[in-house]
């Protein structure tokens, strides 16, 4: 928890199933500046494969993924 990357914006997507996490993050990423970090918190295990796939196609970058107490925290750097 303490050595996690400092996010510029945090999105609480806990409890939301497919396709909502990716749909919401694709909107939310536009609310941070290019170069800034968006943290998405989800409980959907599918996010572990979906977020990297979304990042590759949208040109953004997953800089870290932390799993703790059933919550998946994905740190995304806005590149485009």
């Amino acid at each position, binding site marked *: 928890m303490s050595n996690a990357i400092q996010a510029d914006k945090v999105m609480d997507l806990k*409890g*939301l*199933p*497919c*396709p*909502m996490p*990716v*749909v919401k*993050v*694709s909107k939310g990423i536009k609310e941070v500046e290019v170069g800034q970090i968006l943290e998405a918190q989800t409980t959907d295990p599918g996010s572990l494969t979906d977020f990297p*796939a*979304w990042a590759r*196609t*949208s040109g953004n970058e997953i800089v870290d993924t932390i799993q703790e107490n059933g919550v998946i925290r994905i740190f995304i750097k806005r590149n485009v």
Partner: protein
Amino acid sequence: MSTELAQIEQQIAEMKAQLEALQKKSPSNKLSMVVFSGDLDRALAAFIIATGAVAMGMEVVMFFTFWATPILRDPKKKVDDKDLMGKMFGTMLPKGACSVKLSKMNMGGMGTAMMKNLMKQKNVASLDQMIELAGELGVQIYVCELSMDLMGFKREEMIDYPSMDFCGVAKFLEEAMDSRVQLFI
């Protein structure tokens, strides 16, 4: 020297023309989908893929035809001037996204009701909500004019969707030719 320069200029012009021709041929980052089925499960899958595709940065076009057409009816709207067959189809086919059934395990509507309950419990968006979300995300919907005519549906009884138009097969094919991904559901 000047002839060499002219040659290079000509080559560049030719390459530009070839590049433009190639760009015209290569499909866009677009998803074209035919939604044929009027089943709840299949329609839900169609809208999950459609909204997901927008999130992936794709343009999405959905073509509703045959049994999928009544999914887009608005249960609150009434049309009076229908002929006998139109009235029959209107009564027998689902009136909107809320009344479509599962393709399996419907069990006289009990299975569908159970699935809807389960979806609510698990926070899964209903078909209604998915259609609304698709509208917000800019998913373009086309409805098959032939299906509308066959089943006697009128434009006035369809839902208020931000970008809905009516078309024939040529429009679908034009979009499909320009799409990287095409699906039939």
